[in-house]
């Protein structure tokens, strides 16, 4: 035992390599390997007659990807992801702020528990629960009618595109469920970001004459921005790739995740499914480089 530990002491690089072997193998082979296989697949094509994948380099799958019907799917998904992300920032921020700044230690633990608790139960169960909540005969409509607010939901559902016969069959419903399901992923990084800001920085700002609103925009916001970006990476990419929520709640117009599922499963068009998966990856890469350019990570 003693000689083994002194061996590792002498050859520290070797022990580091041994330590990293498993994660490197996992990341290199399983993760990066499958990603590059995916990327390679997207440059193959499907033979229309035989239904076989032709393993030759071609851009025809990408031409297919940019057909109007598929662009429609991409546009719908990206818009939903954007709206969900913005709404989660707006809803999550006050709660995260309370958790990080205002609450007493006991209340803070309780709030963390409440935010995390939904993650302990199955996500599919929660999505179906929302379908019932949002249904025409569901609890939400019952509640609204008791408050004499039915006109509000009727008015919303009467709107073009986002409306529908009931909340559970409209994009509004899809949006609400996305917002609910991903909210913890936005709250936690924002709260963590806020907790990292030393209290003295805000005192310094007010000491130098900054009123609370100015201190917020000049000090708190830039410093918590990496946390907001981290949260939005979750909400944005999770919405881009999800295939369950729009299938359960919504007006059955497809999202990217559903198309990927259909193409690689039922349709057997793995190249097109792969090309579809590349879309969220490219969008996320663009988003991150934009965030970097705007200085979102300078405070890290």
């Amino acid at each position, binding site marked *: 035992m003693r000689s083994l530990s002194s061996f590792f002491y002498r050859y520290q690089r070797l022990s580091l390599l041994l330590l990293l072997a498993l994660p490197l193998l996992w990341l290199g082979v399983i993760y990066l390997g499958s990603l590059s296989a995916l990327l390679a697949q997207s440059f193959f094509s499907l033979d229309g007659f035989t239904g076989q994948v032709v393993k030759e380099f071609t851009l025809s799958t990408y031409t297919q990807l940019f057909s109007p019907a598929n662009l429609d799917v991409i546009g719908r998904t990206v818009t939903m992801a954007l709206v969900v992300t913005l709404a989660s920032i707006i809803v999550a921020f006050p709660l995260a702020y309370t958790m990080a700044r205002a609450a007493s230690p006991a209340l803070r633990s309780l709030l963390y528990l409440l935010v995390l608790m939904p993650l302990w139960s199955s996500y599919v169960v929660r999505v179906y629960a929302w379908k019932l909540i949002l249904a025409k005969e569901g609890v939400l409509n019952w509640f609204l009618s008791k408050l004499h607010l039915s006109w509000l939901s009727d008015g919303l559902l009467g709107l073009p595109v986002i409306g529908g016969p009931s909340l559970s069959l409209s994009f509004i419903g899809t949006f609400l469920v996305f917002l609910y399901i991903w909210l913890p992923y936005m709250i936690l990084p924002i709260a963590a970001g806020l907790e990292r800001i030393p209290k003295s*920085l805000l005192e*310094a700002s007010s*000491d*130098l*004459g900054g009123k609370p609103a100015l201190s917020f925009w*000049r000090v708190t916001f830039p410093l918590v921005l990496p946390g907001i970006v981290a949260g939005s990476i979750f909400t944005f990419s999770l919405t881009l790739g999800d295939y369950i929520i729009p299938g359960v709640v919504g007006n059955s117009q497809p999202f990217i995740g559903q198309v990927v599922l259909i193409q690689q499963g039922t349709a057997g068009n793995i190249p097109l499914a792969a090309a579809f998966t590349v879309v969220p990856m490219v969008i996320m890469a663009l988003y991150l480089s934009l965030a970097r350019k705007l200085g979102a990570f300078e*405070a890290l």
Partner: protein
Amino acid sequence: MTNSSVRFENVNRHFGGIKAVDKVSFDVKEAEFFTFLGPSGSGKTTCLRLIAGFEQADKGQIFISDKLVNSIPPYDRDVHTVFQDYALFPHMTVLDNVAYGLMIKKIPKPQRHKQAEQALEMVRLTGLGNRRPAQLSGGQRQRVALARALVGRPKILLLDEPLGALDLKLREQMQVELKELQTQVGITFIYVTHDQEEALSMSDRIAVFNHGKIEQLDHPRVIYEQPKTSFVAGFVGTSNLIEGQLAQKLSGQTSPFTIRPERIRLTQEIDTAPQTIKVAGTVHDIIYLGMYTRSHIQLDDGPLMTVHSQNLDSNSSSPKFHKGDRVNLSWAAEHMHHLEP
């Protein structure tokens, strides 16, 4: 020097059941270098935060330039703070940090940058404006914090243990610089420290805090030479406290008295000079400290005394006394300082 800069009238501040500041009153004059000295938890930082407006008084009145400020928020007080952790904005350059207060006052960019450059020059950081705080050393950050607080020309500068994080040499250098700067800009400095030497060397007046109260408020010399309480005698410098029968025997008075270690002579023979107090004891231990030697002497019928003797003779490589030696202690009667009973 006659106008009041900051005045506390019976100010109280409680945290839960703890009286952080307990009926504190004082009056800081304009352009004065005023120090709150005390151990941690003595209420000195809370007092500073009450002046800045980060804390609110539960009772009592706080005046800044003779104006009652109890309900005025920090951003409307003409007071700037140098924070203990410097509190520099990590996402801004040094120049933007310094110009922050001017930006809030809506001073146009070229002008505020020029003023910020001048402030950086004043703290000898010319040319570092484009760096980020993270790229600076502790001493440089401290200067940026100082420049940022001074650039807006406040009436009062509050400094919360600003030199605490610096090493000894740099701290001594900054003490001199701070004092010079204060004379140069001519504004009130209110300085919080637990370092008695720092307080003695820089201040016009010192308020010694203990348990949320001011034990003594006076000029540095008076604080050191004529401590009012045994706490002040023990906290500011080292003191030997002599009480009870021995006090009466030696001084002829019943009240306890203190005697500074450096005022005591250690001799083999009994000192025969007139007007000296003499007492005998046994050497308990001897600690060589370079500039001086600290000896602890157990009095025959009294406490363990601390004696500081200057090491004036460079040839004496071995100590004059050893553990267990019998010695005589003596001091001039005028050096005894009687405490309030």
